[in-house]
């Protein structure tokens, strides 16, 4: 692994994320924070869509549920942040495993529809479930930031934790890609029936990757909402963000770690620009939609696919 150029590209990326805000200041940090969260979502969604070929429209449910459980642990049960992170990730992963064994019996469009149903069902359930604050959500008392040095200092710590989760996401995507398990997933993506006849235990593999792809987004959810100060079901289970994660993946190029990461980063920059530019802010949805349509129709491989078509070298370097 240490001999592969892409490994060092990933290391350099993470170092850049750590160093840039230290020199660039708070504004840079905030932009990178959101970019990192998007990259985490896209990288883990890539495990399902890019590696396994299952279109998960509801990946946001991991993020939202992780956030909800984590903030519950912090505000109601008084857990420290690190314990909430681990606790939320474990519970979400187990729930995803159980859910995955059920809904992954569906294929193609049926699976995609079911994942939409899961998001909506979970959102409306949490909105009515009083221990999680119902539709009002949960508020984090500012005193919860004391152990991290107060609200302002906590932002730095949360930022570095998110970068750690980002690093883990990059590494996870890379290692799965180069593993025997990953090979089995690719086989499922290409032709599930053929894969099973070749000996790939598809139902188990799918449920495991569904569960694995939930862990890091769940942690990102805890961190995001911890920083956010409040978690409300509308915000935690926003179907749009799930679909945006797919757009990021398409933009960067699905199936590659590089593409997922690049897509998440580029999308955040692009959206941030559209949203705050005077000219485009009214039309940002139109522009984003037109861009997506163009990618789907004319460049389904995304940026990475485009690069690979031009230079065969990139295929070996950008994995």
């Amino acid at each position, binding site marked *: 692994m240490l001999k592969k150029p892409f490994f060092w590209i990933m290391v350099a990326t993470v170092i850049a994320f750590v160093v840039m805000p230290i020199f660039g200041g708070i504004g840079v940090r905030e932009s990178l924070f959101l970019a990192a969260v998007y990259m985490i979502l896209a990288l883990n969604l890539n495990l399902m869509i890019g590696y396994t070929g299952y279109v998960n429209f509801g990946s946001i449910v991991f993020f939202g549920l992780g956030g909800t459980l984590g903030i519950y642990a912090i505000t109601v049960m008084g857990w420290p942040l690190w314990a909430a992170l681990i606790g939320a990730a474990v519970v979400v992963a187990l729930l995803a495993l159980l859910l995955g064994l059920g809904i992954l019996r569906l294929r193609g469009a049926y699976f995609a529809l079911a994942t939409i149903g899961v998001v909506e069902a979970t959102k409306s359930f949490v909105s009515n479930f009083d221990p999680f604050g119902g539709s009002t959500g949960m508020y984090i008392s500012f005193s919860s930031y004391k152990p991290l040095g107060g609200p302002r200092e906590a932002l730095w710590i949360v930022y570095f934790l998110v970068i750690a989760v980002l690093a883990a996401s990059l590494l996870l995507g890379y290692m799965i890609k180069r593993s025997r398990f990953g*090979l089995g997933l*690719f086989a499922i993506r290409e032709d599930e029936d053929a894969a099973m006849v070749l000996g790939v235990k598809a139902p188990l593999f799918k449920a495991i990757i569904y569960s694995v792809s939930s862990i890091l987004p769940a942690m990102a959810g805890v961190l995001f909402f911890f920083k956010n100060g409040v978690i409300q079901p509308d915000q935690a289970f926003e179907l749009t963000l799930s679909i945006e994660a797919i757009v990021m993946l398409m933009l960067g190029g699905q199936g590659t770690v590089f593409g997922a990461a690049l897509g998440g980063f580029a999308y955040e920059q692009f959206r941030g620009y559209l949203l705050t530019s005077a000219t485009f802010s009214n039309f940002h949805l139109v522009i984003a939609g037109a861009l997506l349509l163009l990618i789907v129709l004319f460049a389904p491989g995304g940026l990475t696919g485009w690069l690979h078509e031009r230079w065969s070298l990139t295929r070996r370097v950008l994995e």
Partner: protein
Amino acid sequence: MTHLINVEGVSKRFSGVQAVNGVSFYMDEGEILGLIGPNGAGKTTLFNLVSGVIPPDEGRVTMLGEDITGMAPYNVVNRGLARTHQIVKPLNDMTVLENVTVGACFGREKLQLGKAREHALKVLHTVGLADRKDVLAVHLTIAGKKRLEVARALAGNPRLLLLDEVLAGLNPTEVAGMIEVIRTVRKETGIGILMIEHLMQAVMSLSDRVMVLNFGELLATGTPEEVANHPHVVEAYLGDPNMAEKLMARQ
């Protein structure tokens, strides 16, 4: 004695059509069994029933004495059964080597990735695809894809190989090449091979025994000579009474 595979009275109906009806047969190691019959006779369905792709309505399939009836395909693979598909199913967006490595990783031997890759390369040499190893499977010719099917199935070191029309759609040179591959496989590994084939000459020349399926039922089993001369077979399938001689006249 326990056979490599023993199939007892398997049946399958699809929405009113009896696709396979009470078929029984066995095979032993090192044997090549040919399976012939007209289109729609239920040959591929029989393959699907044996390899776990669809569960039979009735009947029992055992491998080396172990009941594998209705087992999921990947579990059947574990027991040492591998198959190819009549309509090829290459893993399109993966290279030839990766395709075969999948077979090696998840076949009977469950090799680790590195070992699997080495083994896959060996198998690619056997089937004559070594020079195409880094090509995406989607870019192979139809003959290449058929070889790939065989290579993937072989890569798991199966005890029993089910070949579903690996010769169909190939030109004479390619057919000769593929027959050579099958011969080599038998010689080198000594595994059992059950093959569906329409190309009579090939079946007759390769098989130790041949069985004939018609309307989902077993019509006859025996050596190629016996089957070729079996009156029911001649009537139902071959049609031409002089066919047998033509077939037996090996090139």
